[in-house]
């Protein structure tokens, strides 16, 4: 068997079990691997990888172990009773959000977290894509709760509002828009989407189960957009889950929020307005170096988590948290920008220099304006050095 046959075999073995873009990514990796090793070491590489069947099995199992509930669910989701009580106590004690916050958010999460005591049999999500009508679909259409649409009509506006799911947005390999919706382990509560007049809408229906076992639940909305695609307005909200916007893209406004989970961005973006909010989790913006993300107006807020920003050029930037730290690494040197940084109980650092509990600099015309406040954590402002 030569490498072409090997890779063709591998692709056909994976094609029915993983989403197309993942298969492409895997084939890409191993094609490059073979090429780097050179034709003379082809046999050696195949021996090291094992047969296509063995490799495919290993990849699918690994992926299922990653996605499957028990070992792979981020710790944040496996909230223990004592943790909730501790947090509830802390919130009442220290923040003015107190009662409202507890009733609205923690109350609901608390209910959901008190899962049935008996062990539920975990059903693996079967990775088979079900063809559907482009433009509209629901996980209710698929027996296994999994739908994948590789080429959606193009859209400029995104409205995602779901009660309980991780939402992620990435760039695909080509010019396609694709959407993957997974509803695993939660009876009812389907995820639905529609694309109409350039607007993508994703929503969820009410779950039948009132007390789902969080460990058995795997619910995701994964959206793929072409690199550099220009969007108008984007609003993404999930009540329980993470929001990850990691697509190189432009947008007029990006509004990303979750009640319980983190909000992250790992790619370079350009936006006039960026709002990221989490009640309980961290806010993280970084693009791993290169050109900075360009944001005219950024508001990053969380109650319990940290706010971390790397390699961003912002016109106005506001960061707030009650219990966490704020770390801002911006394109400009702090001496060139206006800032107002305060903490009630922590420390404020500017350019690696301790300024006690507040630091203010005004009057630089046309310069960025950075405002940050935390009650219990530290604030730091530095130039991003790559």
């Amino acid at each position: 068997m030569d490498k072409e046959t090997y890779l063709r075999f591998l692709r056909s073995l994976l094609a029915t079990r993983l989403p197309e873009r993942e298969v492409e990514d895997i084939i890409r990796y191993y094609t490059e691997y073979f090429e780097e090793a050179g034709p003379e070491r082809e046999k050696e590489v195949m021996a090291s990888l094992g047969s296509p069947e063995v490799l495919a099995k290993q990849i699918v199992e690994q992926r299922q172990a990653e996605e499957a509930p028990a070992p792979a669910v981020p710790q944040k989701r496996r909230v223990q009773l004592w943790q909730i009580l501790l947090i509830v106590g802390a919130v009442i004690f220290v923040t003015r959000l107190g009662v409202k916050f507890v009733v609205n958010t923690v109350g609901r999460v608390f209910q959901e977290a008190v899962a049935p005591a008996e062990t539920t049999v975990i059903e693996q999500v079967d990775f088979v894509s079900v063809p559907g009508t482009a433009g509209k679909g629901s996980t209710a259409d698929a027996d296994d709760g999994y739908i994948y649409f590789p080429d959606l009509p193009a859209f400029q506006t995104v409205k995602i509002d779901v009660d309980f799911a991780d939402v992620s947005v990435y760039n695909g390999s080509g010019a396609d828009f694709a959407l993957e919706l997974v509803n695993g382990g939660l009876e009812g509560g389907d995820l639905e989407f529609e694309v109409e007049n350039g607007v993508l809408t994703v929503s969820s229906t009410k779950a039948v189960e009132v007390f789902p076992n969080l460990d058995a639940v795997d619910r995701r909305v994964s959206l793929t957009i072409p690199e550099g695609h220009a969007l108008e307005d984007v609003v993404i909200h999930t009540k329980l889950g993470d929001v990850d916007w990691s697509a190189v893209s432009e947008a007029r406004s990006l509004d990303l929020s979750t009640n319980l989970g983190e909000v992250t961005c790992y790619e370079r973006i350009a936006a006039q307005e960026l709002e990221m909010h989490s009640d309980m989790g961290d806010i993280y913006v970084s693009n791993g170096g290169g050109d900075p993300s360009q944001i005219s107006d950024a508001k990053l807020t969380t109650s319990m988590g940290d706010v971390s920003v790397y390699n961003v050029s912002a016109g106005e930037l506001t960061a707030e948290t009650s219990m966490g730290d704020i770390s801002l690494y911006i394109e400009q040197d702090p001496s060139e920008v206006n800032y107002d940084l305060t903490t009630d109980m922590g420390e404020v650092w500017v350019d690696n220099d301790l300024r006690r509990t507040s630091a203010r600099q005004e009057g630089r015309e046309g310069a960025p304006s950075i405002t940050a406040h935390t009650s219990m954590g530290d604030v730091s402002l530095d130039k991003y050095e790559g």
Partner: protein
Amino acid sequence: MTLQLSAPLLDACVLAVLAEGETYGYALTQRLQKELDISGSTLYPVLRRLQKEGCLTVRDRQYQGRNRRYYAITWAGSDRLEELRGTWRGFRGSVDDILLGGTD
């Protein structure tokens, strides 16, 4: 017999190599194979996961008419590496105490 690396240790080894500079999949595998008993298929899921977690970024570059995907460590990756180094020091100390403690 050989001892198997646990997932966090493998993460740490990958991040440590990337901390020396960005590199591509094959070179990374070769580098680790010099010291460790890993196969050609060990690193793909590790790299994919670390990328998903924001510990590394990828960049495609042309090399002799074909594409090479380079992996580079991020700030979050450096933080993770430091954390794992700390954990490893503690762990190594404990195992040394138990295994080698009474032998000198």
